[in-house]
């Protein structure tokens, strides 16, 4: 293939875009829209996941040691807990530390009010137990209840971890469900987008089949015919990715925070988290669609 041909193909590709302005711009806009939907989805999923991670403190049970338990037994209890299935981390908190931790959950004014009602440190020595799988929390809970030397007056203790776990269980299953839905929606969207893109490009090629057929009649080889279309495909792909990327940036940075209101105040991930992956993804989709789809849909007109 000659150099002059290559320049010719590039020029022809650009001319093709300009001269078939309606078709080209429709393709570019459809491609960009599809990418935008995918991108928005992606960023939303990433934000949901990151938010969900912040819910992880649910995997914690506080176990209060009965006041009459001596130090040796307390330590022994710690070891017993550590040996239990599903337990990942056990921290001992003295009465004072436990109270401090508790108070930290409140802001200044709340703490002032709270302390007013609760004059004395009401907490005993405590074990903070972190565990891995929320699904297996109920067995763990009963194992813990059977330990001797903990505050056996289970009336509130039992209530406490149980209800936390109850909710944690729900949240966890909800979290899994959402992730699953998101992933599947993303896959469906991806398939549909590709489908839409393929069809759009097929339409573009279809609208120019006359041109392709005439090329054959004046003795053009298949590769000669396909080349300018591939260049066009590349241009379309690159342009659409650029447009999609720009819009995505704008949407994410300026529009999304307003849209989400309250939720966003907990802080969206910065756009830079996605910039690289989105750029790569958009370019891949764009180029794939532009090149593969256009050369594939031409094939049948090359038979004439």
């Amino acid at each position, binding site marked *: 293939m000659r150099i*002059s041909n290559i320049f010719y193909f590039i020029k022809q590709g650009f001319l*093709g875009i300009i*001269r078939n302005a309606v078709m080209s711009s429709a393709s570019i806009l459809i491609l960009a829209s599809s990418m935008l939907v995918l991108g928005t989805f992606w960023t939303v999923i990433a934000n949901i996941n990151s938010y969900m991670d912040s819910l992880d403190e649910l995997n914690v049970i506080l176990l209060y040691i009965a006041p009459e338990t001596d130090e040796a037994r307390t330590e022994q209890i710690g070891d017993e807990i550590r040996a239990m299935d599903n337990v990942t981390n056990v921290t001992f908190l003295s009465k004072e530390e436990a109270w401090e931790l508790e108070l930290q959950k409140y802001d200044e004014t709340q703490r002032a009010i709270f302390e007013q009602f609760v004059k004395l440190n009401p907490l005993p020595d405590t074990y903070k137990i972190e565990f891995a799988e929320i699904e297996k929390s109920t067995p763990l809970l009963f194992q813990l209840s059977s330990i001797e030397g903990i505050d056996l007056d289970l009336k509130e203790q039992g209530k406490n971890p149980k209800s936390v776990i109850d909710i944690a269980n729900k949240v966890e299953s909800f979290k899994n469900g959402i992730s699953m839905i998101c992933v599947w929606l993303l896959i469906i969207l991806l398939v549909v987008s590709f489908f839409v893109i393929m069809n759009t490009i097929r339409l573009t090629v279809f609208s120019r089949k006359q041109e392709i057929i005439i090329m054959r*009649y*004046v*003795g053009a*080889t298949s590769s*000669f015919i396909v080349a300018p279309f591939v260049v066009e495909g590349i241009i379309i792909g690159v342009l659409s990715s650029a447009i999609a990327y720009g819009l995505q940036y704008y949407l994410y940075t300026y529009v999304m925070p307003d849209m989400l209101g309250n939720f966003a105040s907990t802080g969206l991930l910065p756009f830079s988290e996605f910039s690289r992956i989105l750029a790569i993804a958009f370019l891949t989709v764009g180029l794939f669609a532009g090149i593969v789809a256009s050369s594939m849909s031409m094939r049948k007109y090359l038979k004439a």
Partner: protein
Amino acid sequence: MIEFKNVSKTYPNGTVALRNVNLSIADGEFVFIVGHSGAGKTTLTKLLMREECITSGSLRVNNYRLEKIRRSKVPYLRREMGVVFQDFRLFDNMTVYENVAFAMRVIGESNRAINKRVPYLLNLVNLADKCDRFPHELSGGEQQRVAFARALVNNPKIIIADEPTGNVDPQMSLEIIDLLIRINKLDKTVIVVTHEKSLVDYFKKRVVCIGDGCIVSDKIGGMYDAH
């Protein structure tokens, strides 16, 4: 060297456009093909460039045997001939200049060669001043002449013209056929499909007359309605 041996062509809808055609055209010949509307003249040219495949018989064009040519070879067959189509077949989205240049581009000519030869041909068909127009901005005769220039641009061994004078005035018709005869003198084969009785009668060349898909007469120095 073109050789039809017992060639028949039936279109998918059942129309028999050509039946048992035997015709041989030597290199450097000049042939008029005449016949009533729907006789099969265009079909004959379509077979030559393999726009349509022959249904039976055998057809040779130079070194290509068209009944068994591979698809990848077809472009090279087509480069051996320059065709003026009855319906012009110009690229709607290319200018006059580009339409002609494209035929050279296709066979890999350099920009230099293209820039030299295209203006020469546009001049020949009197369209130098309209080289930047698009086909829809041209009159019928002008479009036909663009097609003509494109057919000649690669200096092909065989020139096939389907009604090259259908849309031009008598003066221009004479000039076009004159040009074809001059080209023919350079040892090119020229095949002209035409209805223009006066032209055929005037030039006294070989005339092949087709009627209902069969060759009904084939005379050198023939007249349009000599049969």
